[in-house]
């Protein structure tokens, strides 16, 4: 199993995670994905890549370093993102009852291993 597929496998094993993907933030394209049916990977990649880019600029303007984790919480679930090296972002789409705490730890660790 490749490093990337191993990373996605770790994240999708967390209860409540509906899919994980590795995204190139600059152009919003999918590098690799492991998604349940019904999750639109291309949309998740494009939208999350753009949002993470904007939040990174916001954090920098606020005097903060590059974000290590982003959690977009919505009524029926969340989008989690852990920026990694080389403009890559590890993204997960999770259900409302997901173990977000565990997913966060796995994603931060996994994103660091992508280097």
């Amino acid at each position: 199993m490749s490093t990337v597929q191993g990373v996605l496998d770790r994240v999708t094993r967390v209860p409540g995670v509906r899919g994980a993907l590795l995204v190139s933030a600059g152009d919003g394209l999918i590098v690799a994905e492991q998604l349940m049916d019904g999750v639109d990977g291309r949309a998740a990649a494009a939208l999350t890549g753009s949002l993470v880019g904007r939040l990174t600029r916001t954090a920098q303007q606020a005097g903060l370093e590059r974000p290590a984790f982003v959690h977009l919480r919505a009524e029926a679930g969340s989008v989690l993102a852990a920026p990694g090296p080389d403009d890559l972002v590890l993204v997960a789409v999770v259900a409302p009852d997901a173990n977000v705490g565990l997913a966060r730890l796995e994603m931060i660790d996994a994103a660091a291993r992508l280097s």
Partner: protein
Amino acid sequence: MSEDIRVLTARLADEPSSLAFLELAEALRRRGQLDAACKVARGGVSRYPGLADAHDLLARVLSDQGDLAGAFDAWSSALQLDPMRAGALKGIGFLYFRAGDVVAALDHLQRAAQADPDDASIPVAIARLRGEVRENGGRHEAPAPSPAPPAATPFEGIEGGEEGFLLVDGGGLRLGGMLRAPSGEDLGDRVAAQLAGVSREAARATRILGLGPWHSIAVESPNGQLILAAPTADTVLLTARDHGIPLARLGLLAERAARAARSWLERVG
């Protein structure tokens, strides 16, 4: 105890996590058992803080109890979760009317009419208020105490005051709050400019991914953390702190600040 309330109470006891509290509290409210209705509705809000129905219900109960400030806050919470919720827009419009501010009441009712064109009561109320505006220039003798006058800043009484909060309009302009660099330089306007349109972008992302309305965005950096929330459909509130405060607690502080900002916006808007 009537039969329907008995049945609903039993259902809620069997399944405390069910949504039966909505029917039960409404049934109690209709029967005038307002204290019991309030207790059930507050329990529901506590269990389902992201459910606009629960806040709307609590607001109706509080309004019936005469707690107009509490009703205002609860309807504001419902609108944060669902900005086009007709019941909450009508409720806040009613409170403004009670407070004597016919123009603000009219504005809310017009938004309610857009949200629910089938509700025939709204055009009737709008026509009546327009008559008031023509006759009295928008002022109406208030039969009840008005909500408190707007504070000078949105964050009065919130931990940290203005520092570390930034309320931004849809165009990226600062409405309130202050964000300082360690050197003392005010970063607020630059950060505000980055936040122009972020609420629309987040809403688009969660809608397309089938996740419904967005509630918050938490951003963790090695040297600090940010929470974004949308007090209203057109504004974004940024709360910034260092890692001295746990992220989940920062989320609670951000929620409180968003409620304060929403109330402030409703009053100054």
